[in-house]
């Protein structure tokens, strides 16, 4: 797509002013890194606080007396059981028993607020519109920016600007006033660090971002570090670690489908691909997503093939996410491989015509520090 056809977030000028390198991403022109560089942006987020522009992600409101029940027909999660002021992770599934997208669902009392991946937003909204026949209103939020403030100092920084946020716990959602603007906060993110996602009225997004960046602990962080942070945290990324053909159990997301939606549960099934998905979960997956630590320093990236022998042998699967883990201090990767492989086992990655030994590693590579 030519750069001219790409959408820009409300923070576009701020990114340029801070020296960001802009790249096309999911139809948007987004900062991949700032002059600090991916490595230091990653380490800064782990040590202090990083500010991410995630305004490209889709925010959608579902309104209607039975919205939670209706959404359970598309998402195999316990949404009826989601308390007001709480958020939960879930999946849109398809009839093939695969994953259409992953999303966050927040119960905000008189409505649900969903956050979906940028690349899938249009398709997700069209998918959600089938709930309109049941009297649910589907309202894409187009007049708000979305920021993520992540890192061990995120709470201290945000509390200074928005007193009261420190009381929130992991996966809480709440509304706060900031200088007359209503912020929709959630205590979550995708970096493996404590932090917040902040939905802010579009016309106040730059002012809020500048106010956060004026705090000494905060640096702007691009998509490059966002990817290495989530990879170290063992968090799967839609379009890489999962897609429309991936059973939830294989990518290690069976946990998002609770007992109440499984066979024998009070609200078992009733979502796209339920038969296939529930059968798969009951049997246990034949393949599962696992961590990989290559020997040496050479990263093994998405698409690299994994074998069961140093020469010849059988292909076991392909790397779905891989790169360099700055906090780990070496190359890390994830792949969906035969479930019988255990941490410590050796497999081989074919890299530039050579087989490199790779050790199966437990996920995550970097232990998250959420505030529970």
């Amino acid at each position: 797509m030519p750069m001219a056809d790409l959408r820009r977030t409300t923070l576009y000028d701020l990114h340029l002013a801070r020296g960001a390198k802009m790249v096309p991403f999911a139809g948007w022109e987004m900062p991949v890194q700032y002059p600090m560089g991916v490595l230091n942006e990653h380490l800064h987020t782990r040590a202090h606080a990083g500010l991410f522009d995630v305004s490209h992600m889709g925010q959608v409101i579902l309104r209607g007396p039975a919205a939670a029940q209706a959404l359970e027909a598309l998402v195999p999660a316990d949404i009826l059981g989601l308390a007001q002021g709480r958020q939960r992770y879930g999946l849109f599934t398809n009839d093939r028993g695969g994953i259409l997208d992953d999303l966050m669902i927040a119960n905000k009392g008189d409505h649900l607020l969903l956050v979906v991946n940028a690349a899938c937003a249009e398709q997700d909204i069209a998918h959600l519109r089938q709930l309109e026949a049941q009297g649910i209103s589907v309202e894409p939020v187009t007049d708000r920016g979305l920021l993520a403030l992540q890192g061990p100092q995120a709470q201290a920084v945000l509390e200074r600007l928005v007193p009261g946020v420190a009381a929130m716990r992991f996966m809480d959602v709440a509304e706060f006033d900031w200088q007359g603007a209503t912020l929709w906060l959630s205590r979550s993110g995708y970096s493996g660090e404590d932090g917040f996602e902040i939905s802010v009225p579009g016309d106040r997004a730059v002012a809020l971002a500048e106010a956060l960046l004026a705090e000494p602990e905060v640096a702007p962080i691009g998509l490059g570090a966002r990817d290495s942070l989530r990879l170290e945290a063992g968090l799967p990324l839609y379009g890489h670690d999962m897609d429309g053909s991936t059973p939830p159990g294989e990518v290690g997301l069976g946990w998002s489908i609770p007992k109440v939606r499984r066979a024998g549960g009070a609200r078992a099934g009733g979502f796209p691909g339920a038969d296939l998905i529930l059968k798969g979960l009951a049997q246990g997956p034949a393949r599962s997503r696992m961590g990989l630590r290559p020997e040496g320093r050479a990263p093994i990236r998405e698409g690299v093939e994994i074998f069961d022998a140093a020469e010849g042998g059988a292909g076991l699967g392909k790397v779905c996410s891989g790169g360099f883990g700055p906090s780990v201090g070496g190359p890390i990767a994830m792949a969906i491989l035969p479930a019988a492989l255990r941490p410590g086992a050796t497999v081989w990655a074919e890299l530039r015509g050579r087989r490199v030994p790779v050790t199966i590693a437990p996920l995550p590579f970097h232990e998250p520090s959420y505030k529970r």
Partner: protein
Amino acid sequence: MLKYTEDHEWLKQEGDEIVVGITAHASEQLGDVVFIELPEVGREVEAGEEIVVIESVKAASDIAAPVAGVITAVNEALTDAPGAVNDDPMAAWFFRIRPASADLSGFLDEAGYQALIG
């Protein structure tokens, strides 16, 4: 005097050898370098043959031999500290090559290279 290739390598003639590295522009474009694989000393290479693998946080790329010749030395320190390429690209040489022909007149000079990268 330094010469440059269109692939963003710098070449420095020292005696009958050429020292090869990458330019500041190239290191900025690559981003943080996390892995470097160097050729074996004594290897005979063709001009344009890809002999160095360089991986940044973003992607893998190759560095080609600028001329045909024999590799006489490699900068082993880069294997353990690849970030040196970002910190000081003009000091972080990759390899020395004894060329089959000593003529570097076909390469870009400083002004020509600056014109290339705009």
